[in-house]
C-alpha cells in the first residue's frame, strides 16, 4: 500500500535519515503547505472566507516560530526556560533600534527585514547564551527559577535603559517591512510574510533535530552524564541549545514587532512565557508536529470558545451577573494550576493508573462542578443581555480552556502529537489489528 510499511526496507543511511520516510508523509506535507499557501488566500480573495481569519493564521505562524525555539530547548535538550518571552522582546527592541537608528541613507529607508530578522535573532541568541550559563550547573526547577529571573532582569533592563527602550514609553514605532519597495501592510501580505518564516522555522527544526547537533541535544536530555561519557561536549551543546532557542525567540519577536508595528516589552511579559510553555506541553515535547498542534490549540481555542458562547450562550444562560464568577474562577485556579503542573511533570506518568485517576478527578471534579453549577443555576430560556453574556463568555473561556488542557493531558500526557500518533498507528493496521 502507498501509505503502509510492512517492514524495514531501508538500504542506505540517506533513506533512514529522510525527512519523510513514507510517500504519504510527503503528500500530507505538500497538502498542508498548499492549503495555507494557496487555498486559504484563494478563499479570502474569492470572498469565501473573510480576511479576518488571516489574522488568526498570522498569529499562529508567529507563535510557531517562538514555540519551536522553546521546544528545541525544553523538548529536545531537556532544559526548562520560563524566560522565553524576554528573548522575544530582545528581538523586538533590536529591530526597533535598527530601523530607527541606522541612518536611512544606507538602505534608502529603514533597515530591510532580511537584515533585521537575523540581527534580532542573533542578538537574542547572544543574550540567551549568557542566560544559559547557569544551566551548566543547575537543572530542573532550579534552572526554571534562574530563567524566570532572566525574564525579570531583561524586562527591568529594557524599562530602565532609554537607549534600548527609546524613552519613558518603552515603545518604538517599527515601520512595516518592505519587499521590492512594496510596503507589506495588508493582512494578506503580512500573512505571507509570516508564513514564509514559519515554514523556514519548521524545516530548519526538522533538519536540526536529525543532525549531529540535534542528536547531541537528545542525548543530553535523556541522560547528560551518559552523553558526556560518550563524548558530547555538554558545555557547548547546552549553550548552543540556549542560543538556537533564543534565536527563534528573537525572530518571533521581530515578526511580532513588524506585525504590530511597535516594539513594546509589555507585550512580552511573563504570562506570554507561560503561554508558550503551555503550547509545547499540550502539543508534545520534542515534536515539530506537536509544537504546531499546541500553538493552534492555544491560539485558536479561546477564540472558538468565545465565538460559540457569544453566539449560543444566550439561549441557555440568563442573568449570569448574579453569580460570583470571579470566586468560582479562583477556586478553579487554586485547584487547576498545581495539578496541571503536576500532570506536566514526567514523573506523574509513572504514578500508576489509580493515583493518576484520583488526582485527575480532584482536578476535574471541582472544575466540572463549577461549570455545571453555573449552567444549572442559570438555566432558563431567556436571552441574556449583552453585558452579562460578554462576562459569561470571558469567564467560560477560561474555565473551558483550563478544563480542556487538563483533559487532553490526562488522556495523553505526551501531548497532542502523541495522541495523533496513537490514532494513526491504530489506523495503520486497521481493520486487522491484533
Amino acid at each position: 500500500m502507498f501509505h503502509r510499511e510492512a517492514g524495514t526496507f531501508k538500504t542506505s543511511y540517506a533513506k533512514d535519515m529522510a525527512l519523510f520516510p513514507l510517500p504519504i508523509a510527503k503528500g500530507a506535507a505538500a497538502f498542508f503547505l498548499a492549503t495555507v499557501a494557496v487555498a486559504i488566500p484563494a478563499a479570502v480573495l474569492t470572498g469565501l472566507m473573510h480576511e479576518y481569519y488571516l489574522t488568526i493564521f498570522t498569529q499562529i505562524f508567529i507563535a510557531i516560530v517562538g514555540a519551536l525555539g522553546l521546544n528545541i530547548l525544553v523538548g529536545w535538550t531537556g532544559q526548562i526556560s520560563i524566560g522565553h518571552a524576554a528573548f522575544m522582546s530582545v528581538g523586538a527592541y533590536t529591530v526597533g533600534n535598527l530601523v530607527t537608528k541606522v541612518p536611512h541613507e544606507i538602505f534608502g529607508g529603514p533597515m530591510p527585514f532580511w537584515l533585521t530578522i537575523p540581527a534580532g535573532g542573533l542578538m537574542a541568541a547572544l543574550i540567551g547564551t549568557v542566560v544559559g550559563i547557569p544551566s551548566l550547573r543547575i537543572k530542573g526547577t532550579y534552572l526554571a527559577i534562574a530563567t524566570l529571573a532572566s525574564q525579570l532582569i531583561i524586562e527591568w533592563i529594557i524599562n530602565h535603559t532609554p537607549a534600548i527602550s527609546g524613552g519613558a514609553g518603552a515603545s518604538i514605532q517599527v515601520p512595516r517591512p518592505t519587499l521590492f519597495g512594496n510596503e507589506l501592510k495588508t493582512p494578506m501580505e503580512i500573512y505571507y510574510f509570516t508564513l514564509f518564516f514559519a515554514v523556514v522555522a519548521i524545516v530548519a527544526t526538522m533538519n536540526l533535530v536529525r543532525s549531529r547537533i540535534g542528536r547531541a541535544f537528545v542525548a543530553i536530555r535523556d541522560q547528560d552524564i551518559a552523553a558526556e561519557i560518550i563524548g558530547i561536549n555538554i558545555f557547548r551543546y547546552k549553550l548552543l541549545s540556549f542560543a538556537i532557542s533564543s534565536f527563534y525567540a528573537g525572530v518571533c519577536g521581530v515578526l511580532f514587532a513588524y506585525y504590530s508595528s511597535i516594539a513594546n516589552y509589555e507585550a512580552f511579559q511573563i504570562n506570554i512565557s507561560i503561554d508558550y510553555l503551555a503550547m509545547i506541553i499540550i502539543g508534545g515535547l520534542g515534536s515539530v508536529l506537536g509544537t504546531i498542534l499546541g500553538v493552534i490549540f492555544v491560539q485558536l481555542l479561546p477564540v472558538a470558545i468565545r465565538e460559540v458562547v457569544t453566539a449560543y450562550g444566550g439561549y441557555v444562560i440568563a442573568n449570569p451577573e448574579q453569580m460570583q464568577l470571579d470566586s468560582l474562577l479562583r477556586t478553579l485556579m487554586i485547584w487547576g494550576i498545581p495539578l496541571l503542573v503536576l500532570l506536566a511533570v514526567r514523573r506523574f506518568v509513572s504514578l500508576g493508573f489509580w493515583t493518576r485517576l484520583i488526582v485527575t478527578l480532584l482536578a476535574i471534579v471541582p472544575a466540572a462542578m463549577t461549570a455545571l453549577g453555573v449552567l444549572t443555576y442559570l438555566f432558563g430560556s431567556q436571552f441574556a443581555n449583552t453585558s452579562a453574556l460578554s462576562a459569561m463568555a470571558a469567564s467560560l473561556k477560561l474555565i473551558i480552556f483550563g478544563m480542556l488542557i487538563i483533559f487532553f493531558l490526562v488522556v495523553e500526557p505526551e501531548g497532542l502529537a502523541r495522541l495523533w500518533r496513537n490514532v494513526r498507528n491504530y489506523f495503520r493496521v486497521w481493520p486487522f489489528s491484533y
Partner: protein
Amino acid sequence: MWKSGLKQLAAAAGLLGLMSAGAVAQDKELIIGMQCDRTGPTQIVGTTLCPAYHDYVALINSKGGVEGWKIKVIEIDHEYKVPPAMEAHERFKKEGAIFHSVYGTPQIAALAKKLEEDKMAATSPGFGSAAAADGKRFPYIFPVAATYWSQATVAVQFAKKQLGGNLKGKKIAYIFFDNPAGKEPIGVLEDLAKAEGFQMRTFGVPSPGIEMGAQILDITGRFKPDFVIAHLFGRAPAVAIKELKGKGFPLSKVVGFVWASSEADILAAGGWNIAEGYHTLQYAGVGRDYQVIRDIEAMYKAQNKEIPKQMIDNSVMYNRGIFQAAIQIEAIRLAVVAKKGEKPTGQDVRDAFERVKNFTLGGLAPPLAITPEDHEGGGWVQVWTVKGGKFVKTTDWQQAYRDVIKKHLADEAKK
C-alpha cells in the same frame, strides 16, 4: 423512531431559520467593537467598567437609539494580552464596526498604526501614551480623558493650592509604579519643579507593587515631603495608603492619579476611616448624583431588576464606563447628524470626534473641547477627597499648565 428523528431535524432547521431571521431583522444598527479585560490583571477595572458601558448603551437603545440607529456592542475580552487585541480589531472590522473602543496601554500602542490604516477611530481614556493627545500625529486616537501628563499638572496645581499658593522650596515626592505608564509624567513633573521652584524626588515601586515598605519609609523618614503624588495601579494604591497611614503621614497631603482612586482601592486599604483625607484625581464624576445614573436606575426599575451592585460599590469605575460609552456615542451621533441620518463610516466618526463640544452629561463628563490638534479635549480633572465614608468633590473640573503640556507634545513630535 425514524419519523421522530425527522421531526427533530425539522424543528432544528426551523429554529435555525428563526435565528437567522432574527439576525436579519435588525439592519438599522451601528456596531461598536469594544475591548475589555474582565479576566486579566486589570479585571478590577474591567468587571465594573464594561457592565457600565453596556448599561449606557442599553439606556440609549431603550430611548430609541442614536437618531434612529440602534447601537450594537461586540465585546471581546483580551485578558490584557496584545495578540487577542489585534485579533479583536480584525474581528470588529469583519462585523462592520464603525468604532473601536480599545482598552489597555500596550494594546493601543500595538493598534495605533492599524487604526490609521483601517480609518477607524479609537479612544484611550485614562491609559495609552500622553503623546496621543497630539491629533496631528495620532489622527485616529482620542485619549478623551486627561492623560498622565495633564494629571501631573493638575496634581501639582492642587498641591500648590493646598500648601498655601507657593511651592518655592517645598518638597514633593512622586511615588510611581515602575512601568512605562508610571514613568511617563516624570518629565512634566521635572519641568514643573523647575518652574515652581520645588524639590521633587521620584520613588519607583516595582511590579506588582504590593511591597513598598522601603519606598514609604524613604519618603516619610528621610525625604519628609510636603506633598506626595501617587501614580499606582492594581493593589498598589491600597498598600500605599495603608503604609503612609501606618507611618503617620497625613493623607490630606497625598493625591492619587486616576488609577489610584476608586472605592475599591479605599476598601482594600482598610476602609474609609483609614483613608480619611486622601485626595484622588478623577476624569469622570463620582457617585450617583447625576441624571444619567438616575436614568439607568429607572431603566432597571422598569424591567423589575435590581440595579447593578457595582454602580453603588464602585461608582468611580462605573461612571468611567458611562463616560467612555457616552463620549463615543456622542461622536457617533454627530457623525450620523453630519451624514443626515445615513450610516456613518469609521472616518465619519473620527471626524465627528473633533467636533465634540459642550457634552457634559450633567456634570459627569468634563467640559471637553476636542479639536483637530487636541484630542485630549483640554486635560480636565476633578479632585475628590475621602471624607466621612465617601468621596466628596473638592474642586470642580480644572486644567493646569497647558503651556508645559504643549511644549512636551511638541518635543515628542520632533523625535
